[in-house]
C-alpha cells in the first residue's frame, strides 16, 4: 500500500509541462502510429507473399497428382490418389466431376482458378473446375477442384480450410518495439541536449535581477536558441544601460542638491531667531540624510574603503552615544572591544541606520554584543510593534516602508535597512529580522571574525 502511494507520489511529482516531457509525449504518439501502420503493412505484404507461395505449392501438387494418375491404370488410380493426399489436400478419382462451377459470386474460387491456370496451364488441359462442394449445404470453407483427365475421368481434390493462416510473429513485433524504445530514448536525450541552453536563460535573468550585472548567455546551440540568446543579451544590455542612465540621473540630482543645501545652511546662519534657525537646520539635516542615503544606496557598498581590523564596539558606542545625545533611549551591553575585519564608515552607517530605526519606530533600542571564536553577533531589540513575519522580507527592499511608519514625523524613505543589509552582506555577515521578547523587532547581525 505504501509502495503504491510512493509510486503515485512519484508520478504526481513528474512535470508534464516541460519541453522534454511534451516532446516525449509527441514522440511516443508518433512512433506508436508509425509502428502500428508499419506492422499492418508488413502483415499485409507477408500474407500476399504467403498466399503466392501456397498457391504455387498447390499448383505443383495438383500437377503431380494429375500426371501420376494419368499414367496409371484405372484400378490403381483411387489408391494412388489416396496415397498422394496429405494435410489440407484430399484427392479422389471418379468417373465424373464433383465440383460445381463457381457462380461468379465467390471471388475466392474464381481467383484461385485464374491463378492455378496462370501457374500451371497444364492443369486446365481437358477442363478445370474450382468451386464449392456439390450437393446440399456445401461447406463454404472447403474448395473442390475437379480436373478432367485425358480419358474423360475426373480427379477431384478437396482443399480443407483454404485461407492461408499467417503465422504469428511475436519476435518480429518485439524487435520492432525495442527499436522504437531505443529511438525514443535517443530522441529524449537529444531533446534534453537541445533544450538545455534554455535553462541558461532563466539563470541569466535571475542573476541579472538579483545582482544587477549583465550575465551574457552563450550565443550557441540550435539556430533558434542562438537567435534567442542574441536577442536576450541585447535586451539585457539595453536594460542595464537604461538602469545606468537613470541611476546616473538620480545620482546627479542628489549630488547637485548639495550646493543649494550648502547655501541654505549658510543663509540659515544669518537668521537671528534661534528656534527658526534650529528648525531650518533640522530640515536641512533631514534633506542631507536623504541625499546621503540615496547616494550610498546607488553606489552600493563599493566604497573604496579597505577592509581593516576594526573595533565594532567602538563603532556601536559612537552610534549609541550620538543617538542618546539626540534624546533617544539607547543602551549598549557587551564586551569592551570586539575586533572584526571591516570598513569603519560603512559599518557605522549600517548600525546608525539599524539602531536609529529601533529608536525611531520602537521608542527604545537595546543593543547587545556577543562574540565567539568565529563571529560577533549584534542584537538590536526595540519596544515597538515589530514587523509581521510576512513583511520581513519585503521591508528589506529599497524604498519599501511599512504602512504604520509612513508618516512625515518618522522621516526616511525606506533605504536604511536596504543599505545596512548591503553593508553587512559586503562584510560576509548576515542580517535577520525576528521578534524581540518584548514584542518589538529584533535585528540580529552576525559578522565573521578574521581568521586568526
Amino acid at each position: 500500500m505504501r509502495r503504491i502511494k510512493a509510486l503515485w507520489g512519484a508520478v504526481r511529482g513528474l512535470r508534464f509541462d516541460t519541453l522534454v516531457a511534451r516532446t516525449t509525449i509527441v514522440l511516443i504518439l508518433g512512433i506508436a502510429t508509425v509502428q502500428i501502420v508499419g506492422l499492418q503493412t508488413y502483415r499485409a505484404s507477408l500474407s500476399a507473399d504467403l498466399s503466392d507461395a501456397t498457391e504455387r505449392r498447390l499448383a505443383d501438387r495438383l500437377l503431380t497428382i494429375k500426371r501420376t494418375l494419368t499414367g496409371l491404370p484405372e484400378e490403381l488410380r483411387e489408391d494412388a490418389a489416396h496415397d498422394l493426399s496429405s494435410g489440407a489436400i484430399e484427392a479422389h478419382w471418379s468417373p465424373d466431376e464433383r465440383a460445381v462451377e463457381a457462380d461468379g459470386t465467390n471471388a475466392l474460387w474464381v481467383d484461385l482458378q485464374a491463378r492455378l491456370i496462370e501457374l500451371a496451364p497444364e492443369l486446365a488441359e481437358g477442363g478445370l473446375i474450382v468451386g464449392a462442394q456439390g450437393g446440399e449445404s456445401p461447406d463454404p470453407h472447403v474448395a473442390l477442384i475437379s480436373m478432367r483427365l485425358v480419358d474423360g475421368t475426373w480427379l477431384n481434390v478437396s482443399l480443407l480450410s483454404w485461407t492461408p493462416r499467417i503465422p504469428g510473429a511475436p519476435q518480429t513485433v518485439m524487435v520492432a518495439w525495442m527499436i522504437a524504445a531505443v529511438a525514443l530514448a535517443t530522441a529524449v536525450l537529444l531533446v534534453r541536449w537541445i533544450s538545455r541552453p534554455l535553462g541558461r536563460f532563466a539563470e541569466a535573468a535571475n542573476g541579472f535581477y538579483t545582482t544587477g550585472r549583465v550575465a551574457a548567455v552563450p550565443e550557441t546551440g540550435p539556430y533558434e536558441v542562438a537567435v534567442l540568446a542574441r536577442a536576450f543579451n541585447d535586451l539585457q544590455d539595453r536594460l542595464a544601460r537604461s538602469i545606468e542612465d537613470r541611476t546616473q540621473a538620480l545620482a546627479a540630482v542628489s549630488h547637485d542638491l548639495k550646493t543649494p543645501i550648502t547655501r541654505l545652511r549658510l543663509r540659515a546662519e544669518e537668521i537671528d531667531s534661534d528656534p527658526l534657525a534650529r528648525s531650518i537646520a533640522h530640515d536641512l539635516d533631514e534633506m542631507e540624510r536623504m541625499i546621503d542615503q540615496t547616494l550610498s544606496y546607488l553606489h552600493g557598498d563599493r566604497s573604496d574603503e579597505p577592509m581593516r581590523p576594526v573595533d565594532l564596539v567602538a563603532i556601536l558606542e559612537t552610534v549609541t552615544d550620538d543617538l542618546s545625545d539626540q534624546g533617544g533611549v539607547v543602551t549598549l551591553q557587551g564586551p569592551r572591544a570586539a575586533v572584526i575585519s571591516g570598513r569603519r564608515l560603512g559599518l557605522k552607517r549600517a548600525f546608525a541606520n539599524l539602531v536609529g530605526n529601533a529608536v525611531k519606530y520602537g521608542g527604545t533600542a537595546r543593543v547587545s554584543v556577543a562574540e565567539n571564536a568565529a563571529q560577533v553577533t549584534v542584537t538590536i531589540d526595540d519596544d515597538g510593534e515589530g514587523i509581521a513575519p510576512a513583511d520581513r522580507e519585503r521591508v528589506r527592499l529599497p524604498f519599501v516602508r511599512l504602512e504604520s511608519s509612513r508618516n512625515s514625523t518618522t522621516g526616511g524613505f525606506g533605504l536604511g535597512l536596504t543599505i545596512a543589509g548591503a553593508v553587512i552582506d559586503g562584510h560576509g555577515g548576515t542580517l535577520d529580522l525576528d521578534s524581540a521578547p518584548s514584542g518589538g523587532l529584533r535585528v540580529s547581525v552576525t559578522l565573521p571574525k578574521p581568521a586568526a
Partner: protein
Amino acid sequence: MLQQLGTTQATEGRVLVVDDDGEILSLVAKFLRANGFVVATARNGAEMKAQMQAAQPDLVVLDIMLPGTNGLDLCRSLRAESQVPVVMLTAKGDEIDRIVGLEVGADDYLPKPFNPRELLARIKAVLRRSRSADSAGAPGSGRLIEFDGWHLDTLKRELTDPTGVVVDLSSGEYDLLVTFLEAPQRVLSRDYLLDATKNRTLDVYDRSIDVQVSRLRRKIEAQGELIKTIRGAGYLFAASVRRK
C-alpha cells in the same frame, strides 16, 4: 573682487576662500567675517594666484570642483609654493579618498554640504595647529600623530590602536583628542576644552566635557590611563606625542 585685508590684530586670521559658486563664495565670506576673520575671495585658479600675493592669507579654503584647473592640481601647486594651510571643500565619497591618496597636501577637508559651524571649527583647528607648530619650530604639518603606540590620521580622521585596529571616534571625541594632542602634558581647563570643541552644530544636545572625556577614555584607555583628571583644574594628557 580684491578685498582689502585689515591689519588689525583683533582678527582671528586672514582666509582666502576659492569657489566658483558666487553665492557660496559671498555667503562663506560673510559668515567668516561675522566670526572675526578677514576674508579674501577668488573664483578660479588665476584669481587665487593673484590673491595669494595680494592678501597673504593665513589659510586657504579651496573648493575642489573648480572649473578650468583641477582643484587637486591647484592644491598641489599651491603647496609647492607656500606652506599656507589648506582646507578643501569636496563632494563626499570617492574624492575624499583621492585627496588622501594623492597626498595633495591639504590639511583638512570638508564634504559638501558642510555645516558652516563645522567649517569654522576646522579652520580654527588648522590655524591653531599651524601656529603651534610654527612657534615650536617643528615640522608640524604632518598628518599623523603618534602617542603611546596609537596613531591618529588627522586627514582621514582615523584612530588606530597599538595593534593596528581602527577605533571609531565620534566627532566630539575626535575634537577632544586633537585638542589634547596639541597640548600634551599640560593641564587643560574644562572651559578651554569646551571652547576648543564646542558648537560644531546648532544641536541642543551638547554634552558636558566630563561626559565627552569619559567616552574618549572608554575608547582609548583599555591599556592604561592616558588622560589624568586634575582635581579642580581640568584634565591632562599624560602620554608623549609625536607628529610624523
